[in-house]
Each structure stands twice: as structure tokens, then as C-alpha cells.
């Protein structure tokens, strides 16, 4: 063990984000995207039932997060070529919302690692989930 690199992954793939949302287990909605059309077809709704200006491709509705929450969502940013999470400032202080967003990021990063391993012909030797939710994957190269 002699060199390590830390990378902040970005969610760039709708399939991986969908898998991550499925892993987290909260019901979510996904916008219907027509070929060449805008991906962000869902409006977010605030805790008072007001429609927010933000539009997203994936949304977890507030009813699945807690009565004081707003919807949270993930929007595709065409210029940055990646997804951004939309969370209201208020909700960033709510443990359940914070946890949901972090879990999605965690699971998306995991799926990104596995996709990369498979694409480049490497082999997963073991996977361990530690009590704090940290995931360790041992990958062998040839």
C-alpha cells in the first residue's frame, strides 16, 4: 500500500442515478424524456404545496421525506454534463433529507466504481459495507 488518490465523483449517468435512488429505497419519480428533449420535466413542490421554479429529472416527493420537507430532486445540467441535487436551504438541516441525499451520492459513487471495473476488465475480489455506511471494494487488475 503506497499511493492513494481521493476523487469526488460526479453523477453523470442517469442509469447510475436511477440505480442509486432504487438502492436508497424511497419512492421517486422520473421525468419522461423524449429523444433530444429536455431531461428536466418535473417541477419541485415546496412544503406549503407551492410549485418551485426548479425543474428536475428525478424527484423524491416531500410526502416521502417528512411533513416539514420540500421535494428534493436531481437535475441534469447540460453545460456541466452532470446532475445536481436540488435541496432547499431549510432541508439541508433536516437529518432525513441530508441522509437521503448523501445515500444517493454514496450509492451512485458505488455504481460508478463497479461500472468502471467492469468496463476496463478488472475483477471485484470483495465488497464490505462498514457499520458507518462506508463501502470498501477490493479490485484486482490483470
Amino acid at each position, binding site marked *: 500500500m503506497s*499511493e492513494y*488518490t*481521493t*476523487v469526488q*465523483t*460526479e453523477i453523470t449517468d442517469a442509469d447510475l442515478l436511477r440505480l442509486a435512488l432504487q438502492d436508497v429505497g424511497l419512492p421517486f419519480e422520473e421525468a419522461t424524456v423524449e429523444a433530444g428533449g429536455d431531461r428536466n420535466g418535473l417541477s419541485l413542490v415546496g412544503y406549503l404545496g407551492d410549485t418551485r421554479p426548479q425543474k428536475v429529472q428525478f424527484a423524491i416527493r416531500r410526502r416521502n421525506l417528512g411533513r416539514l420537507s420540500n421535494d428534493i430532486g436531481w437535475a441534469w445540467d447540460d453545460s456541466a454534463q452532470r446532475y445536481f441535487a436540488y435541496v432547499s436551504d431549510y432541508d439541508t438541516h433536516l437529518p432525513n433529507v441530508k441522509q437521503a441525499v448523501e445515500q444517493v451520492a*454514496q450509492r451512485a459513487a458505488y455504481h460508478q*466504481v463497479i461500472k468502471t471495473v467492469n468496463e476496463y476488465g478488472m475483477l471485484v475480489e470483495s465488497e464490505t459495507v462498514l457499520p458507518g455506511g462506508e463501502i470498501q471494494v*477490493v479490485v484486482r*487488475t490483470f
Partner: protein
Amino acid sequence: MQYLITIKNGKVTITVQGMAGTGCQGKSVEFAQLLGGKIEATEHTEEYYAQVAATVQATIKGQ
């Protein structure tokens, strides 16, 4: 060679295992680049420096 990959809060740390001395140089960065995203840090472990020091010492003795 193998990688130990640790995923925490969406942040991935790639550690190279099973390569002696400077052979590991750049290997974790290579994997990080395949992964995409923003590289935050690349560092060598204490073991790396110990191996390099041992190599230098052996070279000096061998002169």
C-alpha cells in the same frame, strides 16, 4: 496489483496495493481518471517513503 477502493459520502479513495517501491506511481490516479470526477488529492503512504528510502540506502551502499 490490486486497488482498495473506499467510498464514503460519494467520495472515492483509491489505494494501490501489492506494488513495491515507486512501481505504484500514478496507478491510483489512472484509476481515478477512469472513474471521472474531480481529483482532490494524491499522496504516498508512509510505506512508499520507507521503500524509497530503503532503495536509496541500498544504492548508496552498493556504490
